[in-house]
């Protein structure tokens, strides 16, 4: 019977006609809704003075670090009024803009099909990013075809062709004009401190190419934190963190295991939390697994890499950040905590009070007050349930005041029996690593 099902189920299911147009529309709708949700969240609750102070602090700190004189000459034209680096939810690039480190390019080339402008570029220890605008002349096209045009390009570094990989992003399904960034990984490609960059759009069947841009790219110096080497011991040997560098677009840390990794040893049961982030995203060198949360930047690594590099955007708290190793057992199960207004939740890693739960229009709003400012909290492994039904991960919780956190989610119904499933985490306080950027 099982063989009969296995043999026939695909054929049977293929009879179900797929409405591709409707799914395409559904995808765009879902992404639009996601973008609105992200923008909408509690961000407008965050007190402006706190943000301003944080930004000012960051600018002050970064200003002390980056004193490349060549760059200073280059940056006279700044700031760019409408930088493509902005409004992308990219903390690193926003910080680059705020610190006036963007290199203005503004080169435009066109043929009978398309006008391409390379607007700006930026390069430091963690990122090499190029901003672009593409305007189709007299036609609209699906983004897939425009992406083909972008990806069908040759990249040269110092006149030598290279296979630099890049990511790009833009929205809209059927467009005539798009703006985006090419996001390269300078670490992987070792481009040096200053280089001539060339990108040649070769064109596709749909969009003519033969458009070449060439410009020098200048390195924005980072700040290497002195004496940053920290070694942790576990049962197998040593794990060390070294060469912590703070750059305008992010922070990088090199890590190393002191022992050869056994093939059957997939993971160490340790995650690393880097404090004081704010809506961070990440990139990695090699296949590591790094996750963001709003307050702690969480890292789980596979031990079969002896060396790897962690990269993450600048922390908004300015001068200090911490790396906190914590044990998270692979097979650990979440602990369930009922929540209601006034509930005290005591987890393995800290305690908090539920100060408010209320429904506002179509939203469920939950406020949490951390009882001790030194409490180590991670909402990455926390899930909101209603009568045992999963509602949402709590990872989008936001800090709205010193010890006050808020979480809200769109919902059309009033959930009952709310509870939190929280994965037990044991922070290793004695191994806490403090980095100061001063």
């Amino acid at each position, binding site marked *: 019977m*099982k063989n009969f*099902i296995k043999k026939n189920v695909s054929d049977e*299911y293929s009879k179900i006609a797929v409405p591709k147009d409707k799914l395409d529309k559904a995808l765009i709708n879902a992404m639009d809704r996601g973008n609105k949700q992200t923008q909408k969240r509690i961000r407008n609750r965050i007190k402006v003075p706190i943000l301003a102070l944080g930004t000012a602090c960051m600018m002050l700190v970064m200003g002390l670090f980056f004193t490349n004189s060549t760059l200073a000459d280059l940056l006279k034209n700044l700031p760019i009024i409408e930088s493509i680096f902005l409004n992308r939810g990219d903390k690193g690039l926003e910080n680059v803009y705020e610190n006036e480190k963007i290199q203005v390019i503004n080169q435009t080339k066109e043929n009978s099909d398309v006008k391409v402008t390379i607007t700006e570029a930026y390069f430091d220890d963690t990122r090499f990013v190029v901003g672009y605008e593409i305007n189709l002349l007299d036609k609209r096209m699906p983004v*897939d075809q425009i992406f083909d045009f972008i990806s069908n390009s040759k990249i040269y570094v110092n006149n030598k062709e290279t296979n630099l990989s890049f990511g790009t*992003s*833009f929205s809209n399904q059927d467009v005539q004009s798009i703006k985006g960034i090419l996001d390269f990984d300078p670490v992987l490609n070792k481009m040096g401190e200053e280089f001539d960059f060339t990108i040649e759009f070769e064109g596709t069947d749909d969009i003519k190419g033969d458009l070449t841009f060439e410009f020098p790219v200048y390195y924005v110096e980072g700040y290497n934190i002195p004496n940053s080497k920290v070694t942790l011991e576990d049962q197998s040997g040593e794990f060390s963190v070294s060469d912590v560098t703070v750059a305008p677009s992010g922070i990088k840390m090199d890590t190393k295991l002191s022992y050869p990794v056994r093939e059957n040893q997939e993971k160490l049961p340790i995650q690393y939390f880097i404090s004081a982030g704010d809506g961070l995203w990440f990139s990695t060198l090699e296949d590591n697994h790094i*996750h963001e949360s709003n307050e702690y930047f969480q890292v789980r690594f596979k031990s079969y890499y002896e060396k790897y590099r962690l990269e993450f955007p600048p922390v908004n708290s300015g001068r200090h950040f911490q790396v906190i190793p914590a044990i998270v057992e692979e097979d650990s199960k979440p602990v369930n905590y009922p929540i209601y207004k006034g509930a005290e939740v005591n987890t393995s890693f800290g305690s908090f009070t539920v100060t408010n739960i209320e429904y506002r229009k179509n939203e469920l709003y939950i406020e949490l007050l951390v009882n001790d400012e030194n409490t180590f909290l991670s909402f990455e492994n926390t899930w909101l349930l209603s009568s045992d039904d999963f509602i949402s991960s709590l*990872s989008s919780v936001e800090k709205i005041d010193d010890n006050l956190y808020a979480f809200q989610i769109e919902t059309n119904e009033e959930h009952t029996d709310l509870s939190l499933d929280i994965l037990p985490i044991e922070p290793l306080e004695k191994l806490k690593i403090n980095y100061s950027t001063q």
Partner: protein
Amino acid sequence: MESIEQNVLLAQQGDKLAFQQLMRAYQEKMYRMAFTYVHNEADAVEIVQETFYKAYISIKKLKEPKYFSTWLTKILINNALIFIKKQKRFVLFSEAHLEKDNPVVIQPEEKMDLLNAIRELSPKYKTIINLRFYLDYSQSQIAEILDIPEGTVKSQIHRATKKLEKILGEDIAYEKFYKEKCE
């Protein structure tokens, strides 16, 4: 598979096109799976759209790109089950309830093929059949998706298969009876 993982990494970094490519790679299977729960296009599209949305806002939280497929499937199943629960078209059976024989009503004019037989299953068994035989997941992957022990997966596959066998068997018996009656 490598390009899927690369796209996951890009999508986690905010690359919307990579996210779109990922969703398009899986949307047909997602839709067909959703359809088996609701049996109409509009609801199936709604479930898939909700899956797109939840995947979009939470893809950064995906811990390991190689588990993207199971992660997405898990979201889809959750959405489908929540959807049908809200619609009150089905009552989710308790384990005890499932032990009992549920009589299956077969419409005479409807040929009971495999697809229709699966339709008659409870959402729980439907999920198991979808995961094991349509998406071809291993028992350990199914255990991961449904967050149940592998032993339970094995027994549920067995029960779901038996249930299907019974439904199809009844159909065969009915067809035989119907043909004889017509003759």
